[in-house]
């Protein structure tokens, strides 16, 4: 339930950031909105799939991945000399919103998606997760 509430709040944050950027809203709050979005939303959308057992780990991972994704996006544009910051931010908010949607699914559906994903990964790599003993 907490996970769904967090995902919902971050979805709202992503949509507000995307809309305010696209509409070029003139408010001093927009800077803080964009910073909050970069720090929290894209990283959490990815980190939540790890199902970390401790909030500190989940949130520091979320912040780290969010900053890393945005840094790579910005640096790619600078290195490629193709600077389109407004468009890039709108794309990032849309992708983040899409990545947050699965976390909003009811518990059973979300667990099924997660189970399916980990099952596919386990089969692909051909290892039994917990059976290996220490040498």
């Amino acid at each position, binding site marked *: 339930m907490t996970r769904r509430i967090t995902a919902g709040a971050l979805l709202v944050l992503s949509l507000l*950031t995307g809309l305010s*950027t696209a509409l*070029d*809203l*003139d408010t*001093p709050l*927009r*800077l803080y*909105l*964009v*910073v909050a979005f*970069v720090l929290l939303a894209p990283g959490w959308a*990815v*980190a939540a*799939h*790890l*199902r*970390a057992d*401790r909030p*500190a*780990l989940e*949130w*520091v*991972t979320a*912040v*780290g*991945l969010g*900053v*890393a*994704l*945005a*840094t*790579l*996006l*910005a*640096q790619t*544009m*600078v*290195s490629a*000399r*193709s*600077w389109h*910051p*407004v468009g*890039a*931010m709108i794309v990032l908010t849309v992708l983040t919103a899409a990545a947050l949607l699965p976390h909003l699914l009811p518990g059973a559906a979300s667990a099924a998606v997660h189970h399916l*994903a*980990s099952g596919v*990964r*386990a089969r692909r*790599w051909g*290892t039994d*997760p*917990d059976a*290996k003993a*220490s*040498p």
Partner: protein
Amino acid sequence: MSLRLAVATATLTGPTDTPSPVEPPRRQFQFPVLRDWAVPASAGAALVLWCVGLRPVTPGQLGSVGLVTALSPVLLASYPVLLAAVLIELTAPRPRQRLLAACTALGVLLVYGLQPASEQTARLSAAWLHVGFIRYIADHGQVLPAFDARFSWPGFFSLFALVSRAAGVPDVTPLLQWAPTVLAGLATLGIRALVSNVLDPGRTAWIATWLFVLTEWTEQDYFSPQATTYVLMLAALALTLRYLVAPRLAAVGPGVLRGRVVPSGTPGQRLAVQGAVLLLALALAPSHQLTPYVLGGLLLIMLLARRLWAGWLPWLVLLLALGWFSLGAKDFWQGQLQMVIGGFGDVSASFNQGVSGRFVGDAGRQLILLVRVGLAGAVGALALAGGWLLRCQRRLGWVLGLLAAAPFGLIALQSYGGEVFLRCYLFSLPFAVILAAVAVEALLRPSPDAWVLRPSPKLPPSPRRRALRLIPVLALLTGLGLGTVMARGGNDAYTSFGRADVAAVDYAYQHARTGQHIEAVTSDVPLSSARVGEVGQSTLETFCPGLVHVSQCVLDTHPDFLLVTPSQENDGRIYYDLPAGWTSALVTELTASGRYRVVFDQDGSQVLARVVPPTPNEPRKE
């Protein structure tokens, strides 16, 4: 036999984190009932004391000891009150995790929010310089080649250029003032995640988190690439320690393993975590000169100690960093490779620049430096004691010790502009505080027998004796916390600014034409926050050693605008032993020469504009 088993179990699960089997239930004491409301009330009282004691401070009010002399006793009292609340909660049989988390957030505010709350504007000229770099990228979509070494690692600047353009603001100045509080808070979150994967997330882990909050005096948490990449490094380390390291770094067991152990968790989780660490390393490589190498080095130590399951990870992290250095930072090393590798192995040069060379200035400044050395020494001594205790408990201490000591290897590689010791201490802290916390936690135990987890024949101590045992720990933590508050604000007489300083710089930007030159006497000005690459912006400090005959230096360099501020006045007095009022004398001399006149004057911050253009036989000396 069963007692031995109980002790062994406690050791395996983290000795400090589970209530002792002989500990009586919580409700049997009156003290815990009192504690239920006393702890949050004390934390609230600490916040009230801090808010009531806050006073606005300007650089002109500060002396060579810095901010601490301007702080009220009421505000200073807030620190022991909060620490007492935390210690009382930590000694409860079942500490309330959310309450401790709230107290820690409050601790971050009290230590790292002090300057933002009491000073008029963001401090440290480097933070303002970063705003200028970001503004350049935001305006031009590229870096300025061959301008500054930091532009060769532009990841952080590119990130905030993206943020500022998406937010529709000309620059990110509004973020500067509270950035240290936010970034220190995120680093504390990272430390909490990291230590909870080395120790259990109980008492010792909380003490380690608090030791970080109370001993991070380096001030590298301002709006900067190093502060941001530090959080990324902590995230990568915390993820690695949770999902890719086995057995735990402080686990019971043989000192050396014969083979690597598969960590708990699913293959999918391990794969995802490797991808996440790789993503973090990808972002680190173009963002900072040191951090990715430190991360790679720490992972390499874990691999060599046969704790890291993913053997390729440290090599790839290092490869990414070297790849960026070779290709992305070519501007930096081309033509100055000797400067980059010239200090290799020259430990004495690093020591001279990083320690002995810093002991200059008046008595107040030297006192601040001694406090910093004392804090680092205290953390080192506690870490050594903690390592010894782990050894006595038959837990693995040497890998943690190696991880805490390894960053000091940077001393042999580079002096890093005299900052290498500071960076080493910062990179060492995540593991040093774990070892130190083991020592501090032992002080809360009833007897030396319990320090090494031998079963004690004594009965559990009374609540009064428990409370008495808190006193030395409270004194220790209060000393560390107040020492850090003193050390962090120690340079504020010249590293902090007033609104008038910012207004003076803005005036110069508004009136300077492209190609003109704005100069400050010392670097303690919020300069280079705009018009980077368009208007020359520099300081006289390098051109005019010791600021001897400073007015002649100004006339020789004949800048179009000269900035004179109270922070520079303080710097000259504290750092260069100049007489009080030396900036006023400088302004008088320059105006008397007829070549300059004061065009802006607000609260002691002045802008002088050149009124006589230089003659052709008066080239600018640089």
